[in-house]
């Protein structure tokens, strides 16, 4: 049995376990059978369908989006430390989202999609700015250069958000908790809002799985192998930014998922992007469902922002990858 097949089996199993735990564990223990048992207790059914299930699905979608976007950015930039958070793309998306809330923007024909669309625009614009700036600094776009550029943009965009919050006073206090990342109390409407964009973004990335493999050897090499680099790069950047923007719009900034998941996936199942992308998607979903579960149970009844948990796992992993890459002799 191939490594990849084992990967799919294990990952799907992990996802099912995560969903099971996410649905049944909490202040009130609910059996998973409530999901399909029509004669189940009405209260339990309400908890599962109105509170737990949308939360689990949303966490899963956000985790999956961030993880597959991270995997794609890493492949595209040949940089194992790249992810929506470290690149500053998440911050860009936040600015887009906060701006929407701050100015109360509502574009009529976009309806409920106004927030994710603006978030995505913020993400895409930031992505292009970060890459262009890094290229200006250093044509070879070394690993450190991109990450430093990401930090510069994150800091700057972070201050822009702080400024907006300060200007609004009380009513946007909720934005702060949203910024730290959370999937609580969102309900099905958020799932609805995110789903189409996540589908398109994931499809865009998945269509470029083989191109990403070629681009790992450099854009020139990919071009020689017959990849239309310009077009493919654009597809990947837009796909990744779309996923990031959507994730941020529905859950705030949740860091490091896009770093940890693809890295673990590669470590366990190899670095062929034909499998890294789908496996990251599945594992990202599982990881974030578990992280969300931990965040709401660890100091119950208080809820910890989910971003705290992911950063707690993510930062050491980030340090580890950085250390290993430098040991290897750089990129």
């Amino acid at each position: 049995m191939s490594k990849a097949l084992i990967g799919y089996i294990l990952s799907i199993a992990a996802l099912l376990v995560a969903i099971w735990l996410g649905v049944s564990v909490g202040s009130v223990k609910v059996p998973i059978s409530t999901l399909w048992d029509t004669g189940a207790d009405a209260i339990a059914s309400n908890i599962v369908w109105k509170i737990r299930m949308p939360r689990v699905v949303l966490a899963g979608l956000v985790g999956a989006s961030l993880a597959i976007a991270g995997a794609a950015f890493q492949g595209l930039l040949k940089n194992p430390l790249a992810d929506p958070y470290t690149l500053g793309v998440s911050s860009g998306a936040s600015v887009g989202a906060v701006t929407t809330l701050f100015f109360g923007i509502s574009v009529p024909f976009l309806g409920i999609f106004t927030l994710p669309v603006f978030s995505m625009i913020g993400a895409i614009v930031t992505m292009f700015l970060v890459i262009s700036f890094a290229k200006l600094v250093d044509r070879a776009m070394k690993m450190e250069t991109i990450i430093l550029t990401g930090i510069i943009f994150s800091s700057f965009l972070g201050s822009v958000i702080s400024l907006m919050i300060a200007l609004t006073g009380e009513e946007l206090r909720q934005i702060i908790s949203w910024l730290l990342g959370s999937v609580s109390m969102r309900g099905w409407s958020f799932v609805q809002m995110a789903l189409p964009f996540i589908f398109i973004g994931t499809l865009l990335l998945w269509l470029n799985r083989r191109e990403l493999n070629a681009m790992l050897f450099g854009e020139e090499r990919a071009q020689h192998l017959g990849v239309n680099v310009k077009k493919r790069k654009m597809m990947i950047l837009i796909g990744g930014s779309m996923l990031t923007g959507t994730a941020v719009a529905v859950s705030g900034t949740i860091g490091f998922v896009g770093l940890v998941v693809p890295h673990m996936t590669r470590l366990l199942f190899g670095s062929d992007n034909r499998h890294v992308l789908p496996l990251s998607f599945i594992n990202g979903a599982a990881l974030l469902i578990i992280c969300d579960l931990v965040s709401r149970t660890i100091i119950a009844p208080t809820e910890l922002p989910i971003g705290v948990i992911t950063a707690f796992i993510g930062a050491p992993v980030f340090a580890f990858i950085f250390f290993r890459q430098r040991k290897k002799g750089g990129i």
Partner: protein
Amino acid sequence: MLKVENVSGGYDRQLIVKNVSFHVEKGEMLGILGPNGSGKSTLLKVISGILHKESGDVLIDGKSLTAYSSKELAKKMAVLPQLHSHAFSHTVRDTIALGRYPHQSGLFSSWSDEDETAVVEAMKQMGIERYEHQMLDLLSGGEQQRVFVAQALAQAAPILLLDEPTNHLDIAHQKQLLDTIKTQANENGITIVSIFHDINLASLYCDRLLLMDQGEVKIIGAPHEVVMKEQIETVYKARVSTNPHPERPKPQITILPDVKEKRNEQLITIENFQVTDELVVFQAENQLKTWSSAVINAGTGWYRTFVNRRVDARYNIDNAQTEMQQYLANRGYSETETVGMMTAVYTKDAIIKEYEADFGSVVVMVTAGVGNAVDVSKAYEVEAFPAIGTINTWIIVNGELAEEAFIQAVITATEAKTKALAFEQVKDPRTGTIATGTSTDSVLVAATQQGKHIPYAGPITEIGKKIGLGVYECTVEAIQIYKKAKGWE
């Protein structure tokens, strides 16, 4: 197949390649040469479509490069750039399989039998089957290079562009790789354009060479038209000498260093010669450039020790080479620094003389046995077997001899020797005519290659006069001693 027309291009408005034109036929191998920064890699990038060209056109099968889509182009042309490191590791097989990218299409792009065959075949050609499932970053630079060549071969394109393909490879793998590529050209009609750092490899393997200088084409032509001393020296700004390849009709170059060698001035005199019952030995402090027809280390070379050894008349000459090697080794003479000759006459009878001249001096040594004297003009009439009984002539020159002077010195010496035989009335016993030499005569010209440059050594040159006189005198004297010893007089 591939036509480049007046192409100019470079980075950011700065033209690096200027007005380059050439064409390559199907199955031809073109080598691109030039010093660092002459625009070789840039030219390759323009041809492969990575860099935008400012003007001119690149035509593949008569169609402009820009008219091809990325995939179509990759089906026509495979490119192997210089090796770069990468962040993530693939297996060797996955890496080579990427070469099949342009041949796959559709949403799920399934792996066909043709893809599989191409990958397996490419691995076989580069001899990397045993690495198939290893991770690329665990291989050495040379092994990685071969993987990337295999990737390019798997692409199965009729044109192959290579940028210094032998980088990181040891000579065995350089040869294997270039043999493989050349076979692709010869048997499968693959058209090859390759950048080379190594002029000798380029000359050896390519049908034609293109020499670049400051972004322009200096010359394009067959290796013998491009690899010429003056041309290479002007473009590369380094002193070189050209010489023929021993097996192929291709020129090779050798670097001539400008660093002074730590070599004491040496002057060869008669005192350097030692004569014993067994040997005439001459040992120089530094190696002399030598041209000889000796038993051991004949041809050209640099040697320090010169041995003329006496052997018995019944010596078995069938095995002479190995026996002589053994003999020299037993006496502590280095195999690689010694020129060895044999004679049947008493070495004590060797004639050694020194001749002063304005360029330096010439030392001549002759041992002569004329028992097997032959008249070369009648030799076709009779049957003779090689035997011991030889005239060995050494000419040691204190001076710097040009290549042609070595040959002229040998001619001059031979003529003087023949004259000496005539004077002494030495006859070919079979024909009764005056002999011109013996059946196994040997000659050696060695020069210190220090001091004055001597361009020619014909009979009327200063050195030719000394050689003529010296060889004549010494040979006459040696023959007279030989006759006396044999009781002929």
